[in-house]
């Protein structure tokens, strides 16, 4: 057991991003009458139960070893996670799928600022990358947002700032503790806190949902792939990657969202019209990712060596 290589970690983060981008497809199978907090509560509870049942010995060992520190870390992450998800849920109501996805990509732009405020060093290519993504977002949003969406925009911006802090701390805690234990415990805590919010908006909770096979299946699918699978892989990959490179890979979610909107039938996902500004915006996001992920210095060096040879 050697631990993932950088290449493997980056591919894992790409896979995680792709899984997250399919959220809209799974959500399409859940009726709008099911509150967002209900979905978060049930899927987190199932995801956490799966992880604890599969790795209870390892998780118990991690709790025994790190104790209060681990619990507090998970609690902190679950609060951040709940906060940014809630801001996204309410903020995104003001946007369509494409505009909303681009707006969420702002996380990559605010991350370097968060890193600086935490007195972390930010590399030049990270700033360049954030700049490219910002150009991409701006291009895609021109003419599509108006002043009436300001509340939604500010909520999403708040969500992005919180998410950036969350990513920085996931990156730190995944190195300090067992990522599997962090993933399982944090998910369990998210389930508990979102149950509280769910109870607040709908006191009848489970009894208020008109259960059918499709809702149950969708919730299980979400629990396996978005919660248990993607989140655990994300925590392990973050251990081997930097917060900046992780965030940049996450920003590729917009590219996946555009692809799903183009190739999947309208019965599964709302079609996303591919305009010129959307396409150029997505290209800038991809370019920004490449700047962060590809080691151009090493490539140039290699090229120079080859030319000399």
């Amino acid at each position, binding site marked *: *057991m*050697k631990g993932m290589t950088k290449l493997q970690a980056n591919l894992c983060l790409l896979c*995680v991003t792709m899984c997250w981008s399919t959220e809209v497809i799974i959500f399409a199978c859940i009726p709008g009458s099911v509150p967002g907090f209900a979905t978060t509560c049930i899927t987190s509870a199932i995801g956490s139960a799966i992880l604890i049942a599969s790795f209870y010995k390892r998780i118990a060992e991690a709790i025994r070893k790190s104790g209060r520190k681990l619990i507090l870390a998970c609690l902190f992450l679950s609060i951040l996670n709940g906060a940014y998800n809630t801001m996204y849920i309410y903020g995104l109501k003001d946007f369509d799928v494409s505009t909303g996805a681009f707006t969420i990509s702002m996380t990559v732009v605010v991350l370097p600022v968060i890193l600086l405020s935490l007195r972390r060093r930010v590399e030049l290519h990270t700033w360049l990358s954030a700049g490219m993504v910002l150009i991409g977002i701006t291009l895609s949003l021109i003419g599509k947002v108006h002043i009436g969406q300001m509340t939604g925009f500010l909520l999403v911006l708040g969500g992005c700032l919180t998410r950036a802090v969350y990513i920085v701390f996931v990156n730190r805690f995944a190195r300090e503790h067992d990522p599997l234990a962090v993933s399982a415990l944090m998910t369990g805590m998210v389930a508990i806190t979102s149950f509280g919010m769910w109870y607040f908006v709908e006191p009848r909770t489970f009894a208020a949902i008109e259960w059918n096979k499709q809702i149950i299946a969708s919730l299980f699918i979400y629990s*396996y792939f978005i919660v248990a699978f993607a989140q655990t892989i994300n925590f392990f990959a973050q251990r081997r990657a930097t917060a900046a490179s992780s965030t940049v890979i996450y920003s590729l979610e917009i590219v996946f969202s555009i692809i799903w909107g183009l190739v999947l039938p309208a019965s599964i996902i709302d079609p996303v019209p591919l305009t010129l500004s959307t396409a150029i915006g997505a290209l800038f996001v991809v370019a920004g990712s490449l700047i962060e992920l590809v080691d151009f210095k090493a490539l140039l060096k290699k090229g120079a060596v080859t030319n000399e040879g």
Partner: protein
Amino acid sequence: MKDKKISDVLLTFLLQVIVYLVVSIPFKVMEVIPGFTDIRPVTLLGPIYAVFFGPQGCLAFAAGNLITDIVSDSLRWSCIAGFIANFGGPYLIYLYWTRISKESFSLRTGKNILKHIAVVIITAVITSAIITPAVALVYPDVDAALFAVMVVLNTAAFPIVLGIPLIFLMQEELGFEPHK
């Protein structure tokens, strides 16, 4: 001692079939061609069962597929071909990494990841070549070309996109050893 080993193998087999069913059954609500084929992320388990559990894993994968067909009321004569293909596909991956490849299974390099992707795509084509004629023979109304493409996509895309990261996690972080 031998009895214990057999019971361990049986327990592992049972667990693998249960995992298969737990993942596959919810996806029966997302059918693309009703009654025949659907979006099947469960196929990501094929190479994983093959690489980490060998022939017994391949059998569990095929059995899981057959039981899913039974419980979802999709049992047809073509399921015999489905059983053979769902055992054969993962078994070819197992054969490649244990008999043909000169190095033992590891996806730490880009070259090996590409090799694994190629093997998965080839086995997906073979799987489709086994299942499609059987379905076309029993149900002539089915668009065989579309069906074949769907099988290849299902059998290749999910093991590549989701299966490979899961293999990284199992082998590099959770300590699973490839089956020899």
